[in-house]
């Protein structure tokens, strides 16, 4: 218990109740979970990743590496939430993480105990790779399960997230990242040009480091400036203020991505902003110092301790000590002292702090230790005292160790400008010695990095930079940025830092608090040869935690640079990548989940099918009827009945999903001759022809029927799956390969609904349906095409057959398609017409030996499917050359065959492998596979199509369809793939 409420800060009066690990706690409106936990005296919030050392609040912002908690429960549990970024709401449930049974007493902390007993921890850098190998069997049984159980932080929810996420697309002229003094000024100034401005800040309250300032009478004018500026932005129509929005990445085309937390029905918005100019005013983050036990709860960044007191009205302890290597931390000591809280020491590693700081300490009675360091934080679980010592002039050793009492240690190792967003857009940042940190330097195009984000910590100087940027950005966009009142007070930004990358004393000195990476790990990594910054990161996992190394990277790089004897600039940084802060996956998904994951395409007859009780199945983007069960029917009963009915009487099937393309122009016939293997220039007007296309490499691409409507006009159909690709392919041919051809292609897939009417009674049915059309064999022979009208619908009727029965495909303008379907169904009542689905379509075509996507899988040649004879020898066509390569005509290629169950009642499973031995096991000679199967009511047997090595010459052979997955072996006879009506008489009937 060290933290407590002290003053009002800037919080509201409303009291809120929340719980931590079930214990009731009080908060005020405006508190974060971190400030509220501290105010309730909570010190240990969770346990660390590797050693399970106690962890408490270390910061007041997104860089938080210690206070990770789980917010909420059940489907709304939110693991690894940073307590410093989560507002307390009434009734909020907060849970500690990575500890059992409690954060104060954690059984896994034995990992840390081993480290305490041995001089160096067993779990040093790279330890995983050096051990757990003997005996090998234990890796699975013991080592890996133990590692997995210990790893991870929060417990993820196990049930679906009930919340909703939205994706939002925005456009603006000037985007400002960061709502501190610089960002607010830049946004307001830019907004006065009339241009559209968006400003992001990840906190609830805008103001950045202004919020660290005491909310005192002395600062009243400064606070008023902050409020007025925000109010002006909120009032402006051309400004969008996005609070609680973490802008986490910048992408090509000046796109910024952000996740914004919102209250209400939607949990978060994922916002993409397309900006013309980007002003990055993301501020700077304070760096920790590296000394013994610097990860102990109540060791806290100095600026955070200050914000806790001044903004949240939470004193972090009853006795504060400060450890610093620069000027900025003194203000924390002064503010605490001025608030009546005892400050037991300021420990400054520099020899000569400025007179003003020395005076400041003296006037408040604060003991100042210069040229001194904190060697170790002491206390069982949280800080209760510190050991300090004098630092040798060369910085290499310490002496005169002594204890100083305190229950919170505020430290500052300098400031790290937030360069990530700027770095996403361009060159790697450069090292600036005066502030001992990386800055952006070379700005990416359209980007202005300003204020503390660019290493300028002075209040007025940062605002001036921001206004310059706003002016320049607006000017480039043809606008004039407005004049903005400067803040009424200044804060000197000079930190006068003298780098101290680690304290020269033994002890557990953490560099990456969240991943438990120590200074010793960095040194060890160096001695083992992992010296590149990328190797260091990967070998030690440094900077890979969810704080993204914001507090650890620079210290680690500096320690490595020291080991290597090179400058920090030379050691360089790892590559900056989005996201700069972890963001929910749900935001990206937005509402594209569940049924909305991908759009569904439906045909005009969808409602009719639903009413008829169809069962639907995915077919590409479409949902198509699979079968129409009657009462009590299984899928097998239904398709066998439908198949038999089509063969004996008549059926109707929705084939709208076929691709339909109109090809028009004087060279249309020539064009088709090039893309199809067979001749189309000889096709007569009013006739249709089946065509096959190859890819350039000689593989079968697609097939379909193309009709000639006029000399210069053709109507092509493609398979459902290839409707889009074939269209794009034809366009490509015309645009790139043969621009000289005078041809236009246009997709008319959506213009026409389509239905196949098949069976011996098809002609009678259609004659009854469309009396104006002469369906006689003479007037309308096989492969004929007829145009007609019926009740306002335009019709194209093709006499073609996929089923092998006498059949027609009726194309009707989409808006009339359902009426036409109904007309046919009504007319067919006399012949007991049935609708049939994809199962029956499949059964019918397998009986006929027609191939579909199951066979044409992108690996099949013309020869494989016995279509070589179709290929014209009189002309060149796409794919002609390469189809003759040795590998494409090899006699051992699997070729299409029919397969018939020797026992007709035994199904031949799709996906079976064709072998010659009765009980094939591993090592068997695989000679082919089964691509599709059905029961054939006509043959009274299960039949299948498949590909068999040299299959064309193996008709009559008995082989096996092996299905080792289920231990099945079906004896099959190799037959022609034309099972039914091989002479094709029925279609011509």
């Amino acid at each position, binding site marked *: 218990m060290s933290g407590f409420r002290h003053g009002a800060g800037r919080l509201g009066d409303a009291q809120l109740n929340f719980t931590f690990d079930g214990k009731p706690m009080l908060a005020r409106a405006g508190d974060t979970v971190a400030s509220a936990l501290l105010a309730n005296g909570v010190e240990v919030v969770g346990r660390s990743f590797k050693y399970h050392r106690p962890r408490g609040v270390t910061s007041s912002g997104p860089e938080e590496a210690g206070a990770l908690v789980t917010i909420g429960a059940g489907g709304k549990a939110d693991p690894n939430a940073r307590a410093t970024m989560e507002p307390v709401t009434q009734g909020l449930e907060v849970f500690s993480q990575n500890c059992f049974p409690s954060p104060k007493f954690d059984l896994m902390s034995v990992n840390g105990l081993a480290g305490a007993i041995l001089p160096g921890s067993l779990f040093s850098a790279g330890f995983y790779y050096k051990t757990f190998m003997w005996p090998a069997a234990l890796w699975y049984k013991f080592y890996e399960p133990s590692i997995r159980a210990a790893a991870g932080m929060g417990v993820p929810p196990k049930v679906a997230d009930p919340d909703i996420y939205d994706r939002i697309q925005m456009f603006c002229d000037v985007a400002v990242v960061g709502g501190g003094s610089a960002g607010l000024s830049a946004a307001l100034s830019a907004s006065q040009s009339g241009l559209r401005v968006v400003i992001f800040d990840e906190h609830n309250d805008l103001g950045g480091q202004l919020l660290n300032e005491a909310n005192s009478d002395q600062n009243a004018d400064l606070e008023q400036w902050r409020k007025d500026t925000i109010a002006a932005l909120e009032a402006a129509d051309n400004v969008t203020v996005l609070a609680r929005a973490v802008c986490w990445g910048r*992408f*090509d*085309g000046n*796109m910024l991505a952000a996740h914004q937390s919102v209250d209400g029905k939607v949990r978060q918005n994922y916002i*993409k902003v*397309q900006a013309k100019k980007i002003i990055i005013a993301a501020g700077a983050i304070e760096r920790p110092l590296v000394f013994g036990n610097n990860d102990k709860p109540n060791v806290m960044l100095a600026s955070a301790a200050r914000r806790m007191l001044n903004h949240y009205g939470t004193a972090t302890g009853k006795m504060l000590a400060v450890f610093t290597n620069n000027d900025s931390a003194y203000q924390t000591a002064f503010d605490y002292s001025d608030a009546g809280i005892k400050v037991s020491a300021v420990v400054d590693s520099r020899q000569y702090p400025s007179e003003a700081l020395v005076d400041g300490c003296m006037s408040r009675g604060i003991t100042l230790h210069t040229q001194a360091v904190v060697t170790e934080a002491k206390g069982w679980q949280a800080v209760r005292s510190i050991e300090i010592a004098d630092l040798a002039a060369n910085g290499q050793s310490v002496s005169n160790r002594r204890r100083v009492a305190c229950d919170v240690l505020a430290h500052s190792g300098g400031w790290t400008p937030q360069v990530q967003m700027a770095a996403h857009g361009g060159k790697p940042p450069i090292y600036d010695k005066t502030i001992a940190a990386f800055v952006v330097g070379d700005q990416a195009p359209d980007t202005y990095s300003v204020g503390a984000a660019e290493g300028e910590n002075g209040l007025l100087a940062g605002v001036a930079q921001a206004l310059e940027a706003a002016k320049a950005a607006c000017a480039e966009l043809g606008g004039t940025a407005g004049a903005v009142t400067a803040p009424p007070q200044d804060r000197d930004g000079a930190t006068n830092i003298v780098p101290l990358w680690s304290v020269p004393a033994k002890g557990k000195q953490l560099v990456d608090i969240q991943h438990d990476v120590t200074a010793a790990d960095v040194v060890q990594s160096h001695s083992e040869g992992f010296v590149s910054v990328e190797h260091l990161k990967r070998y030690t996992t440094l900077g890979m935690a969810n704080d993204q190394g914001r507090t650890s990277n620079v210290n680690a790089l500096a320690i490595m640079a020291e080991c290597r004897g090179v400058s920090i600039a030379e050691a360089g940084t790892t590559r900056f990548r989005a996201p700069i802060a972890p963001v929910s996956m749900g935001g990206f998904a937005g509402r594209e989940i569940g049924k909305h994951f991908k759009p569904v395409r439906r045909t005009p007859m969808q409602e009719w099918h639903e009413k008829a009780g169809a069962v639907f199945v995915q077919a590409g983007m479409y949902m198509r009827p699979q079968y129409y069960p009657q009462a009590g029917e299984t899928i097998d009963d239904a398709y066998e009945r439908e198949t038999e009915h089509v063969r004996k009487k008549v059926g109707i099937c929705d084939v709208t999903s076929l691709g339909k393309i109109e090809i028009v122009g004087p060279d249309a016939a020539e064009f088709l001759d090039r893309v199809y293997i067979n001749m189309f220039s000889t096709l007569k007007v009013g006739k249709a022809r089946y065509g096959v296309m190859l890819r*350039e*490499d000689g593989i079968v691409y697609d097939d379909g029927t193309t009709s000639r409507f006029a000399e210069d006009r053709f109507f092509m159909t493609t398979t459902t799956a290839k409707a889009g690709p074939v269209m*794009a392919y034809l*366009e*490509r041919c015309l*645009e*790139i*390969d043969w*621009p000289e051809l005078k041809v236009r292609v246009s997709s008319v897939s959506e213009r026409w609904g389509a239905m196949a009417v098949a069976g011996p009674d098809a002609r009678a049915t259609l004659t009854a349906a469309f009396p104006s059309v002469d369906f006689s064999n003479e007037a309308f022979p096989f492969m004929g095409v007829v145009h007609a009208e019926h009740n306002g619908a335009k019709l194209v009727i093709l006499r073609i057959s996929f089923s092998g029965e006498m059949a027609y495909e009726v194309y009707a303008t989409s808006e009339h398609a359902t009426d036409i379907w109904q007309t046919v169904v009504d007319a067919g009542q006399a012949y007991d017409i049935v609708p049939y689905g994809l199962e029956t379509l499949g059964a019918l075509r397998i009986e006929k030996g027609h191939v579909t996507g199951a066979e044409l899988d992108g690996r099949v040649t013309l020869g494989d499917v016995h279509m070589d004879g179709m290929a014209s020898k009189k002309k*060149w066509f796409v794919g*002609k*050359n*390469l189809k003759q*390569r040795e590998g494409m005509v090899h006699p051992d290629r699997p070729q299409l065959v029919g397969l018939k169950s020797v026992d007709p009642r035994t199904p031949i499973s799709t996906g079976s492998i064709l072998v010659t031995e009765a009980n094939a096991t591993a090592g068997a000679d695989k000679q082919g596979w089964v691509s599709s199967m059905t029961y054939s009511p006509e043959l009274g047997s299960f039949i299948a199509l498949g590909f068999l090595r040299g299959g064309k010459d193996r008709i009559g052979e008995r082989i096996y369809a092996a299905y080792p997955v289920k231990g099945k072996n079906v004896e099959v006879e190799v037959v022609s793939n034309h099972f039914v009506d091989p002479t094709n008489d029925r279609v011509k009937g």
Partner: protein
Amino acid sequence: MHHIYCPYCEEMREEEEYSYTGEAHIERPKDPAAISDEAWADYIFFRSNPRGIHHEMWYHAAGCRRYFNATRDTQSYKVHETYKMGEMPTITAATVAANQVAKGDAS
């Protein structure tokens, strides 16, 4: 999000409207029947795949559905220019190199 200028629509549009369709200016063999398998394989499969300036074809699939050429840097992804089918690029690896020498930032 890349933005690509369609030379037919004459508008800057988002990359999701387009699809990349491969290296540009690969001339189709004039007499397809006369050339060897190797030459055909080269035409169909083999690509220059440079790191840097690349002339490539894009298809405005969700727009005008026309194919055009783009000069794009495969390292920086910057689209230097787009131009219609049948036209030639004004920016090439050679002009970019010459430019860099002129600016003195060749290293």
